[in-house]
């Protein structure tokens, strides 16, 4: 039949659809249109159903234009598809990186291959302008250009001209009589251009920064007793060229108020006296909102520690304007006692559930305890397996007194893996394989093995420790060690040691933070001294004993208390360890070594932590000294290559060389200096020196008494990553032959800066220092670094 001219749908009466035809399709298949079209064959449709269909098809976002017509009983849908985006290029954006921008565009639906919608482009442009304005760049101009291509495609280029951020030229506090502008503006994030602005960018205006600062202004006064303090108004204005910002805050200080008394009311669960002790403000003190809040927090904590997770404490001030005093009533609303239903972990794709659960102090089915949860968070942080840990306690739907505890964590490589090439000050180029894993395949076990040989070390180590051999945390492990070490290359005196050791390691927790450690091991140590190269005292020691191999079976008892709050960058807590190592009777040489380590982290502010640390080591023998004597012989002048002739002293007796072996054996001596001890001095070179007459080659002897210490200012927020630590340090101390030789005057000291980075391959340490107190002859080393595991 002759095709009927399609009549526009607007002015016609409803009809039954015999068939549906779609014209103008390119990319989208007819099937797709049918899926989204709310009309099927055989439907009776009228104008409203048609309008509804057009809306439905528009919502798919595929089409620019949709027309619906009627041809006899056939419904004709005419569409023109939106073009697809072929390529998106960004030009000129510096402050916001391209990936971030492209991701933002992708979220809005503008990505290569997607359909292109001009309306979206407008929305994107405004969004980008808003983002740049928020960064204080008010002169930004964003110009998108769309170039049409064949096959209904478009290329999209977004040209960004960022301009410069508006600089704050003037911050004025009006109405502050008691405190000067400088005092008030001290802690602010916004500031006028100053010499540090290139780094802190504090002169770049942003609305969030300002609102944060105004809050600081409020607490500045409320923390100093100005109860009636009020910010009447603030004005923010900008120069006509949009490059200077001017901030004015008009305040009314009001009077200083003092506390006339405090009261605790409401249902306090525990007797009021118990809570009274927590109140930090007492009668006569100047009012301080900070102390009020600290009091409120500590009362809430006490209640939240015993199940009252939703406890609220409202400090209600009763202000007496005439006497300018405030009576504070802490109104306690404990809410219900809450129980923990389930504890769930998110993000542990490698670490096993039990390794985390065993650190928890909060149990399922137990009343909610904020202290237990906080303690669990610290214990998880001390494992060193996770970068950041966040804990949420969502309420269980349908139950007023049950919550779940959801801990999400971001795993990090915990340990180190050095393969092949390694370099360290100490041992030169290392060809080695060394794996040290603190979370071996997520099992929480510590496994380490090292196979290595180079110029002066032949070494094979295997160590294994299961920190939770029992569920209560008794740890059990063992080490197998074989080493051939040429001490001379390690800046120590010229002698070589070959030793093999087998050790069993136990650890028993005795309190929440204290652990007793026991190591039990047997080892064999062969010392090779080279006459003429090895210092005389060592040769005398060996001669006195008359043997070179030392067998020993030894044990070390140690007690450690560790309350630090993180594994890599602790900002709070102390660490103390005292260990006594003793070779048991029957060993070739019977001696003991005591070692005390101490480190305390003082949190000074959010961006500054002071570390004070010290280490004291002392060793001595406990068996009786062994002395031997040897006749001194000399060359027979008459028969040079014949037998040597004894030398006589002046009253005719044969001259004897008497040597005794006493005190700590030299191969167990302490040493000082180097990257892990007193920085700025070459490894192991401090302490008593031996020098052959006539040679200027110093051979450090080490000593049996070691005292070193350090003061270090750490800047945790300078590089905002959990795995790096920047600090300025002052190291001091020295090693002495024995306790009587101890003399503070002999201490060496050096100051400098250090960078520690926990890289995937292992700890990298770099420090730059200058000696503060040295004596000539010390081996100075301004730049020190190691990467890979320290040997």
């Amino acid at each position: 039949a002759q095709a009927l001219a399609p009549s526009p749908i607007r002015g016609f009466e409803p009809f039954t659809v015999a068939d549906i035809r779609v014209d103008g399709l390119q990319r989208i298949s007819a099937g797709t249109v049918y899926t989204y079209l709310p009309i099927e064959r055989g439907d009776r449709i009228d104008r409203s159903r048609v309008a509804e269909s057009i809306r439905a098809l528009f919502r798919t976002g595929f089409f620019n234009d949709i027309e619906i017509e009627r041809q006899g009983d056939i419904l004709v849908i005419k569409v023109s598809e939106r073009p697809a985006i072929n390529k998106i290029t960004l030009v000129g954006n510096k402050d916001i990186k391209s990936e971030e921008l492209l991701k933002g565009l992708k979220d809005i639906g503008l990505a290569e291959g997607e359909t292109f919608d001009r309306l979206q482009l407008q929305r994107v442009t405004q969004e980008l302008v808003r983002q740049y304005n928020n960064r204080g760049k008010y002169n930004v101009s964003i110009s998108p250009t769309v170039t049409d291509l064949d096959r209904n495609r478009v290329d999209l280029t977004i040209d960004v001209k960022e301009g410069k951020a508006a600089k704050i030229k003037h911050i004025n506090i009006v109405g502050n009589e008691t405190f000067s502008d400088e005092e008030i503006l001290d802690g602010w994030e916004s500031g006028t251009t100053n010499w540090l602005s290139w780094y802190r960018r504090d002169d770049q205006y942003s609305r969030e920064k300002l609102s944060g600062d105004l809050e600081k202004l409020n607490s500045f006064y409320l923390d100093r007793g100005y109860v009636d303090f009020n910010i009447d108004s603030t004005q923010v204005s900008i120069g006509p060229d949009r490059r200077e910002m001017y901030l004015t805050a008009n305040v009314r200080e009001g009077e200083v108020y003092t506390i006339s008394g405090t009261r605790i009311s409401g249902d306090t669960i525990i007797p009021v006296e118990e809570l009274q002790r927590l109140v930090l403000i007492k009668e006569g003190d100047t009012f301080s909102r900070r102390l009020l809040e600290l009091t409120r927090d500590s009362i809430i904590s006490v209640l939240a520690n015993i199940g009252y997770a939703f406890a609220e404490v409202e400090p209600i001030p009763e202000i007496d304007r005439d006497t300018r005093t405030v009576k504070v009533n802490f109104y306690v609303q404990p809410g219900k006692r809450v129980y923990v239903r389930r504890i769930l972990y998110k993000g542990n794709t490698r670490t096993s559930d039990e390794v985390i659960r065993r650190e928890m102090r909060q149990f399922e089915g137990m009343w909610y305890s904020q202290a237990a949860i906080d303690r669990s968070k610290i214990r998880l942080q001390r494992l060193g397996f996770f970068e950041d840990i966040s804990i949420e306690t969502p309420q269980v739907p349908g139950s007023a007194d049950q919550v779940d505890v959801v801990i999400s964590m971001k795993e990090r490589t915990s340990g180190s893996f050095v393969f092949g090439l390694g370099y360290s000050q100490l041992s030169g180029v290392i060809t080695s394989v060394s794996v040290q894993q603190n979370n071996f395949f997520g099992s929480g076990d510590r496994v380490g093995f090292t196979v290595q040989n180079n110029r002066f070390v032949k070494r094979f180590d295997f160590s294994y420790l299961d920190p939770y051999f029992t569920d209560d945390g008794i740890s059990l492990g063992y080490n197998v060690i074989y080493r051939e070490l040429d001490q001379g290359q390690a800046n120590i005196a010229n002698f070589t040691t070959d030793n093999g050791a087998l050790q069993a390691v136990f650890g028993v927790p005795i309190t929440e933070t204290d652990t007793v450690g026991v190591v039990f091991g047997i080892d064999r140590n062969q010392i090779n001294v080279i006459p003429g190269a090895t210092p005389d005292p060592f040769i005398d020691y060996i001669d006195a004993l008359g043997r070179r191999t030392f067998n020993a079976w030894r044990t070390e008892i140690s007690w450690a208390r560790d309350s630090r709050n993180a594994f890599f960058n602790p900002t709070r807590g102390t660490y103390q360890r005292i260990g006594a190592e003793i070779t048991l009777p029957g060993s070739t040489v019977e001696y003991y070594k005591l070692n005390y380590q101490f480190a305390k982290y003082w949190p000074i502010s959010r961006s500054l932590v002071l570390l004070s640390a010290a280490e004291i080591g002392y060793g001595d023998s406990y068996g009786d000294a062994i002395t031997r004597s040897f006749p001194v012989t000399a060359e027979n002048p008459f028969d040079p290559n014949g037998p040597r002739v004894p030398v006589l002293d002046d009253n005719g007796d044969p001259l004897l060389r008497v040597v005794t072996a006493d005190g700590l054996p030299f191969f167990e001596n302490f040493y000082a200096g180097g990257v892990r001890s007193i920085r700025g001095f070459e490894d192991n070179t401090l302490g008593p020196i031996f020098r052959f007459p006539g040679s200027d080659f110093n051979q450090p002897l080490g000593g049996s008494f070691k005292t070193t210490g350090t003061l270090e200012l750490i800047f945790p927020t300078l590089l905002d990553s959990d795995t790096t630590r920047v600090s300025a340090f002052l190291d001091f101390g020295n090693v002495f032959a024995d306790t009587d030789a101890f003399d503070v005057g002999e201490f060496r000291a050096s100051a400098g800066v250090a960078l520690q980075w926990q890289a995937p391959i292992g700890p990298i340490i770099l420090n730059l220092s200058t000696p503060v107190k040295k004596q000539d002859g010390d081996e100075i080393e301004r730049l020190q670094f190691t990467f890979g595991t320290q040997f």
Partner: protein
Amino acid sequence: CGIFKSKTNRENIEPPTELADIDTGVDVDQIWSESTGKGERQLGLRQAVALDGGRVFAADVEGDLTALDAATGRELWQVETGLRLSGGPGVGEDTLVVGGLDGTVLAYNPDSGSERWRAQVSSEVITRPAVGRGLAVVRVNDGRTYAFSITDGTRRWVYDRGLPSLTLRGNAAPVIAGDLVILGYDNGTVSAVSLEDGSQRWEQTISEPKGRNELDRMVDVDGEIVVSGSEVYVASFNGQVQALDLGSGRPLWNREMSVYAGLALSGDKILVADKNANVWALDRRTGASLWRQDGLAYRWLTAPGVTDRHVVFGDLKGYVHWLSLEDGSLQARERVGRKAVRATPQTGADGVVYVRGIRGKLVAFRAGS
């Protein structure tokens, strides 16, 4: 090929037009030049000097208040107030009034420099107070306007208007006309207030905020307002230049233009520089443009100072420009310093023009015929 692109303009704003040299101009001689304290520096105050009875009065943010002889520039007296003076000074009825950044208002005897009284307002004062009929009217940055008796500084009335969250830096100086005070506000309105009791007589919106973000919606009336006869001439940012009837506030004519520094009247011409520093002369009765000078485009000009034959502007690099009143042609150019001139050039007796840079250097010029 990105590397070959010329160094894009990092500021992303139009660079100031290069100054062509002037061939047929008029010569200007510098009568005297003095340094009056540290000036307004970069606080966006547009702090001009005040002229009264052959004397020039200048205040600065270091706290110095100085009076000089207008003819010779010799210092008559100087007071070190120790307060950051930012608004004015304004002189009238034998009283000098100046406002500070700390919300203090001070009144002095202009002859001797002795302090008469002192008062406190609620925010910083960054524009010239006006004096009339025994009252000193002080506009304050938080939108309030105070009136004090010039004899003893007692407060007579306060007029208050709300402000948008982001405004253009600067406030319009109050203008006293008869028994009315004309005030320009940051929300694009001009109000007339009774000088006697501060009650509002009328209020007229000059321009409506339009645009999507805070910046495009700024419509401040911050520039100089001119009242002459029964007409009030006003200009607003992102808005228009408008003439209003003094008595009723009824608009007479308006011209679409974005202005930040305000306008001036000379004879039958209204002189104004728009945001892009194109200078216009408009017929005061109809607003029709008489001539236009865009040789100083994008040089961030001050409000115009007028003499009988010239219009005088300061610009962002410290230059001072004389334009012919007749046709706007560039007549002369001098330089006050390396830093910007932001204060409006003031015209004294016999055509002497007093221009002050933001570093405090004050120079008196007289242009030849």
